[in-house]
């Protein structure tokens, strides 16, 4: 249990998707103009990460890893399908996003129209595929660990996008040098937030 909480906290603050690995920057920059839409997108990302990482974990463990297919037949123990992992992961993610899109459209039409084209873009949000690939690379032991990693990364991303959206709402009233307006200042503010988040780095869990 302690281990799970460690992974959870670590993936939120120390290995934050945005500030430590720059994953999901595209939608992070594009959608962070107002807090309201970024909350919607953030929740969608938590949800999708929390489901795809464990799903891909199972896929990885029982199909892709070298020797994983022994549960079908012991003679498959030399089969290594790990080169297929990119295409399998992205297929799971794309179909799941399609599902989420349909659910949101049905049950929360207001959120659907405010998220607009960004919902399908979650499929190509690097944070989602990145979550699955990091899960594979770090070799988490159990399904619970993979789930807490997925949820933690999603929450970390959510915090980052809300933070930048709040800052951008305020920064509109400041006098920024014209060439820096918009994109430029957003980059620099994100960099400063990243430096602030680096203060968590020394923490050993």
């Amino acid at each position, binding site marked *: 249990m302690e281990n799970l909480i460690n992974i959870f906290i670590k993936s939120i603050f120390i290995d934050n998707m945005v*500030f430590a690995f720059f994953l999901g920057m*595209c939608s992070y920059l594009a959608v962070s103009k107002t807090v309201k839409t970024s909350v919607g997108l953030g929740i969608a990302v938590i949800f999708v990460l929390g489901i795809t990482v464990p799903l891909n974990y199972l896929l990885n463990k029982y199909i892709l890893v070298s020797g994983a297919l022994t549960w079908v037949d012991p003679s498959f123990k030399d089969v290594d399908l790990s080169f297929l992992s990119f295409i399998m992961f992205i297929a799971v993610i794309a179909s799941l996003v399609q599902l989420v899109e349909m659910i949101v459209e049905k049950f929360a039409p207001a959120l659907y129209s405010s998220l607009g084209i960004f919902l399908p873009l979650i499929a190509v949000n690097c944070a989602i595929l990145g979550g699955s690939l990091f899960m594979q690379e770090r070799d988490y032991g159990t399904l619970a660990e993979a789930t807490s990693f997925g949820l933690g990364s999603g929450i970390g991303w959510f915090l980052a996008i809300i933070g930048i959206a709040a800052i951008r709402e305020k920064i509109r009233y400041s006098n920024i040098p014209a060439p820096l307006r918009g994109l430029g200042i957003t980059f620099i503010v994100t960099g400063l937030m990243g430096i602030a988040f680096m203060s968590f780095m020394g923490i050993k869990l």
Partner: protein
Amino acid sequence: MSDKEPLFSAKNRKLLKNPLSSDNPITVQVLGICSALAVTAKLEPAVVMSLSVMAVTAFANVIISLLRNTIPSRIRIIVQLVVVAALVIVVDQVLKAFAYEVSKQLSVFVGLIITNCIIMGRLEAFALGNKPWPAFLDGIGNGAGYGVILIIVAFFRELLGSGAIYGFQVVPKAFYDMGYQNNGLIILPPMALITVGIIIWVQRSRDKSLIESN
């Protein structure tokens, strides 16, 4: 467009040239930021990464452009993802075979080329509506525009952070003896963002038409 159009007509040259400056995928279109920042602490992975992205963008553009009349628009995203994922697997296996050290350094970021928004963006915006040859040029141009920014950022980060360029020590030993130190801060991830911010600042100061109205 007639078939007799020369291969490098003015229009096609524009496809190659614009992404390098006024229509740069990173600083203007805001696409493909993720990988651009994460692999730029050193020049070598940055160069490998830009070449990989350029290859995948160009060939994915060609393939989608050849298929453009047969793909039903409802499932086009999945078709695009499959084409791109297949190309990325090829790139990944090639890197593992011929540049193992670099592929270890790039870790998950080779896989993340699949979700690099430059590729999806160009497929959606260009390849679906154009012939293979212009699509190929567009892919090369955007890959190169991405590469230029990567290489500029990596150049400064490696020079200031490690005193080296492409792994060769360029800051002489005498400087260190006199008290010069490498700037450890610039190796850290957040400084990549600030470096790109400064590049945007410089570019928009030179080209006023790109300035946003707040």
